């Protein structure tokens, strides 16, 4: 099992699994009330220079109310595991990101991310290490499993490998070449869910992306939830719990927390506002104007929702309510 090749990318967040075990041991195992506002959660757990991660798929289930608060509090020099659309975009536009483990930052059908491009091309992002989507998710999975690395057959033979911190080793059983990726431990994870109880037991309906893995790879985990439900509702369907309470440090109630993104089974995405961002983000000035309008000038998520307006939110609900479920 010799090391045959190694990517030249930096390992910008080396994992210490025994230290992580110790940290996890010290997390409270009692059911304690973890409800707090976005402001408290971000203030307590996100710090300048933190390595953070957001879990979502494109514009779906993005933790926007949390990310907006990170911007409001101006947490800077962030390092990020980047698989994002809206939420990574606004953090980049606010100039808060310094290093990236990147898989994809773009706007899906709307094309490239201009803030990402600007931050990369002007050198404000100091390190950008490349990965595939699955490679990054397997890095979370390694941590979730409590092991230092996982093997995979992605990234072999490519520049994605060359600019990563993956390695190629000999399979000790079959003798072939196999890639391995190192465990990745986030300082803080931000995840938006359909429902959670006050202790942090959280459930998601439908597809779950890489939520299970990222939640388990986070030293601190902030959950925002469309609604906080009684614990009995969780306990009635324990097979739907994707994040058990002991992983969680903060539970933030954030209805429409993914807006202008969507939350399946709940509300559709706000195409007009997304298009507004696509246009605004093309320039530095436009981006700042958007952030002023939707983030800096609104003191919290409640103010944000007031600004968007009930009528518009209900329309988004109406576009999806009850469908499929």
């Amino acid at each position, binding site marked *: 099992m010799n090391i045959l090749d190694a990517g030249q990318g930096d390992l910008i967040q080396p994992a210490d699994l025994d230290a992580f075990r110790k940290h996890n041991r010290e997390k409270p195992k009692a059911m304690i009330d973890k409800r707090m506002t976005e402001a408290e959660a971000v203030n307590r757990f996100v710090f300048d220079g933190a390595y953070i991660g957001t879990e979502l*798929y494109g*514009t*779906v289930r993005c933790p926007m109310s949390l990310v907006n608060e990170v911007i409001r509090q101006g947490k800077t020099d962030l390092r990020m595991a980047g698989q994002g659309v809206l939420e990574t975009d606004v953090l980049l536009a606010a100039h808060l990101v310094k290093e990236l483990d990147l898989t994809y930052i*773009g706007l*899906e059908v709307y094309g490239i991310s201009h803030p990402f491009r600007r931050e990369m091309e002007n050198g404000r992002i100091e390190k950008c290490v490349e990965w595939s989507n699955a490679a990054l998710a397997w890095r979370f999975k390694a941590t979730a499993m409590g092991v230092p690395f996982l093997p995979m*057959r992605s990234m*072999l033979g490519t520049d994605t490998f060359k600019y990563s911190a993956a390695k190629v080793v000999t399979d000790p059983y079959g003798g072939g070449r196999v890639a391995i990726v190192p465990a990745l431990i986030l300082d803080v994870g931000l995840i938006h869910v359909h429902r959670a109880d006050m202790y942090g037991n959280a459930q998601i309906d*439908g597809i*779950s992306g890489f939520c299970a893995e990222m939640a388990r790879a986070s030293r601190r985990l902030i959950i925002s939830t469309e609604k906080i439900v009684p614990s009995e509702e969780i306990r009635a369907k324990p097979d739907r719990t994707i994040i058990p309470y002991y992983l969680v440090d903060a539970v933030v109630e954030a209805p429409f927390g993914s807006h202008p993104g969507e939350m399946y089974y709940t509300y559709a995405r706000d195409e007009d506002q997304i298009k507004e961002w696509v246009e605004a983000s093309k320039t530095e000035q436009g981006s700042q104007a958007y952030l002023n309008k939707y983030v800096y000038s609104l003191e919290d998520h409640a103010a944000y929702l007031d600004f968007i307006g009930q009528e518009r939110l209900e329309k988004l609900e109406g576009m999806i309510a009850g469908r499929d479920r």
Partner: protein
Amino acid sequence: MSEGRYNTSELLICTASRLMPDKTTVFVGTGIPMLAGSLAQKMHAPDLVAIFEFGGTGAILEELPIAVGGQRTFHRAVSASGLLEIIETAQRGFVDYGFLGGAQIDPYGNLNSTVIGDHAKPKARLPGSGGGNDVGSHCWRTIAIMRHDTRRFVEQVDFITTPGYLTGPGAREAAGLPVDTGPYRVVTTLAVLGYEEESKRMMLLETQPGVSVDEVVENTGFELVIPDDVGENPPPSDEELRILRDEVDRNRLYI
């Protein structure tokens, strides 16, 4: 091209759709592949199994998904799981076709969606691999969808984001990638291309309607294998266009 009867997007969608055989598993990404998958289900492939990266498997594509993780990607699906379940399903050989895009492609089907210029000092920074590298590594056959010009069809891509045949015959296997996988087709605004069996180099199969072989050659930045008989891809049929416009994308989000 039959001026006005269909636009470029419609041509690409209809061409890609025909490359999705019934009763196969197809990894579907954002944009054209989604429309093509939906069109295929309504045309010739009712049992096409659409697989979306964030967990949707076997959805009925009644309404067009916009985002790769949106609700429509698992509408009446047989399974709604997560990203690793999907990629691991591909890694153990269950996914027949994968659709890909990119800013550059080379003669061996290697794709670049990461950077133009140097990685450290990019001329233009692009989104990065996303699931592209995973799809290109694990699906049995990958199909690239591209606009066709010399900026995109280049002798050497600036960055191999997603593996094609790498440096040629045997290179994928030597790198450790699963055997018998690799690029299968390239669907472009000018042609449908494949790969020559022995050399693994890109080969012209069909021109798009009204396009000449010379036009394809002129717009390709490397030497194409040109077989003796190059066919013409039939234009979108009336039926295809009707279903595409009236059912698949009736709100005209893409076309």
